[in-house]
Structure formats: structure tokens, C-alpha cells
């Protein structure tokens, strides 16, 4: 009979002694995991609103992007997609290491993650160039800039968090909870990259399919 089961049975009859329970857990057992999930839900909704605005404003134009505005160039955004895809295995590897309390590896993992995030931010700058329009040119410009910026905030947050965590892991003192934090930061990473794959299709591909 598992630890939990015995506790449940105990609870039905009388008092429970929980002194034997662990104090650091991973995944959906941990509070921070649920916190991260909550913020992913809120930020996800934010991105959805931007996408909705993009699609809604599209109905006001005969051509999309509007006549005179060239299609957004693919290069920077595509590199972004490739780079993000490449980063995911690294983060999975880091998450595994954190669950094994492997300090050395998660230090490396967090350094890599902040480097990746920084690269994403730089690429984002070039993506904005590749839109060939300004936010104050017309509603199309406003919509695409809004989408890219909304997602850029995720990148910045991720870089900030990754860098801080890395610094903590090197300078210490390292507490067990930091391993769980690394695990959560990986979870957030999957969300951040996944969100971009969708937005990439929306902003850079969909106008080419049905302009």
C-alpha cells in the first residue's frame, strides 16, 4: 500500500502524521507548476485577443496585406522557428536533469536557455523589420506589430527568468526548490515556442495562402 493510500485510510478513521512527506516535488504535484499554468492561460488568452483583432480587421481590407504593403519576408521568422525547434530538446534535457537534482547539468541548461532567449529577442527585432510596415501606417500594421510585440514580452520574460535562475544556480545558495523552478521554466518554454509556431503561421504564412 503506497504512502498516500495509507494516509487516506488513516484520514478516514483518525489523525494523520505527515512528517514523512517530501518537501520538493515536480510537475503537477507542485504549486508553482499550477501558478505557471495559470499565467500561461492568461498570456495565451492575450495572444488570442491579438490574433482575433488581426483576423477581424482583415475583413475591412480588399487585399491582405493592404495594397502597397508587401508580404512580410520569411527569412528572420523562419530562422526563429528553426531555432526554437532546436531549443526544445535542450530544455527537455534540462527538465530531466532538474528532476534528477543534477546541479551541473541544469546550470548548463539555464545558461543555454538564456542564450537562446537572447537570440530570440534579437531575431524578433529583424522580424519587425521584415514586416515592411509601421504600426502607425494602417490597421494591418497595427495588428501585426501588436502580435509580434505581445509575443516579444514572453521572450523577454523568459530571458529575464532564465538569466536570473542561472545566476542563482552559480552564485547560490542553491535550494531544492530551485530545481522545481528550472522544471517550470522549461514548461513555460514549451508554451512560448508553441505559441510562436501558431503566430508564425498566422502572420507570415496565412497571407500567402489566402491574401
Amino acid at each position, binding site marked *: 500500500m503506497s504512502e498516500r493510500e495509507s494516509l487516506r485510510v488513516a484520514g478516514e478513521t483518525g489523525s494523520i502524521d505527515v512528517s514523512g512527506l517530501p518537501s520538493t516535488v515536480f510537475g503537477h504535484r507542485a504549486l508553482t507548476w499550477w501558478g505557471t499554468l495559470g499565467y500561461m492561460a492568461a498570456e495565451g488568452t492575450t495572444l488570442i485577443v491579438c490574433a482575433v483583432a488581426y483576423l477581424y480587421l482583415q*475583413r*475591412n*481590407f*480588399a487585399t491582405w496585406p*493592404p*495594397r*502597397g*504593403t508587401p508580404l512580410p519576408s520569411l527569412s528572420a521568422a523562419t530562422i526563429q522557428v528553426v531555432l526554437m525547434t532546436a531549443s526544445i530538446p535542450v530544455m527537455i534535457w534540462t527538465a530531466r536533469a532538474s528532476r534528477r537534482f543534477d546541479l551541473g547539468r541544469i546550470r548548463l541548461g539555464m545558461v543555454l536557455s538564456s542564450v537562446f532567449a537572447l537570440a530570440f529577442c534579437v531575431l524578433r527585432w529583424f522580424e519587425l523589420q521584415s514586416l515592411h*510596415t509601421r504600426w*502607425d*501606417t*494602417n*490597421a*494591418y500594421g497595427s495588428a501585426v506589430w501588436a502580435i509580434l510585440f505581445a509575443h516579444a514580452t514572453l521572450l523577454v520574460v523568459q530571458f529575464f527568468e532564465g538569466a536570473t535562475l542561472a545566476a542563482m544556480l552559480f552564485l547560490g545558495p542553491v535550494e531544492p526548490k530551485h530545481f522545481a523552478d528550472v522544471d517550470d521554466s522549461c514548461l513555460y518554454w514549451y508554451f512560448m515556442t508553441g505559441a510562436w509556431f501558431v503566430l508564425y503561421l498566422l502572420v507570415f504564412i496565412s497571407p500567402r495562402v489566402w491574401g
Partner: protein
Amino acid sequence: MRQTLRVGLFGAGCVFALGCQRETRRFRESPPAATSETAVTMSELQPGPKARDLPVLNPYERNAYGVSEGERLFSAYNCTGCHSHGGGGIGPALMDDQWIYGSDPENIFATIVEGRPNGMPAFRGKIPNNQVWQLVAYVRSLSGLLPKDIAPARDDHMVAGPEPQRTEPLLPKHAFTPPAAEHP
């Protein structure tokens, strides 16, 4: 302690003054005649000894509502016909920092009221003085002579961008096709 308090109060006072001045809506202006036409001297020649010409201060320079009214009147009175939305056309551009007849409020006031050679008509008697002052404030805001928090943001018209950037005029959604109507 008391010092900091005093400073704080003073700061609050300043903010209050500015906030108020920027945000007040002054609807019931004194009629045009009340502010005398001669507030601004149109020529150097004066009878009697030379009077020191005091700088005229425009009541609307620090008032966002006045400036936005000026913006409305600017297109309402068809200034846009010649000056476009500041970009210029038949008339000179107003966005740049070049002023043929001076950039001071009183100069612009004179330009509007008296008119200028080569096409600028005189609006004396046609535009009430307070509206002229509102126009003056707006015109000065076009070339960034007013504080940023008072100058109006973009208008709801098309942006003055290069032609190809613009979108084609929009067809209204659910456009209505008039059925044959009897003529009264």
C-alpha cells in the same frame, strides 16, 4: 519632516495647476469683441512714443481642449485645402520649423486675421478671436512648439503618408441598395 511636507505640498500644487490647465474645458468664452483686435499690432508704425510690445500669451497654448478645437476648426474652415494636414500644398507646410512671417502666437494670429500676400485670405470678422487663438495653438502644435502632453494625437483621418501606403476607401459593411422610391 516639515520641509519634505512643504515640498510635497508644493509639488502637488504644481501638478494640480498643470493638470487643471491642460484639462479644463472652457466652453463659455467671452465674445470676440471683448478681446480687442488690437491685442496684436499688425504694423510697426504707432502714433505717439514707442510702446514696449509685450509678448502676447495665447490662453490655449496649455489647454488640450483648446488645441483640439483648433484642430477641428483647421479642417472645418478648410485650412486643409491649402495646407493639407500640415504637410503643405498650395500653401506652405506648417509641420516644419520654417516660418515666413514668424512663429510667435501673435504673428500667426496676424497671418490668419490679416491674411498674407500670395493667397492667404484675411479672416477678420469671419472667425471669432477665441477660435483664431485656438487655431494658432493648433498650428504651433503642428511643428512641435507645444508640450507633447497637450498637442493632439493622430486624428481619425487617413495618415499623411506616401500614396501607395494607403488602403483603398472601405465599402461600408451590409451596404444598402436603395429600392426605387416614389418622388414626392
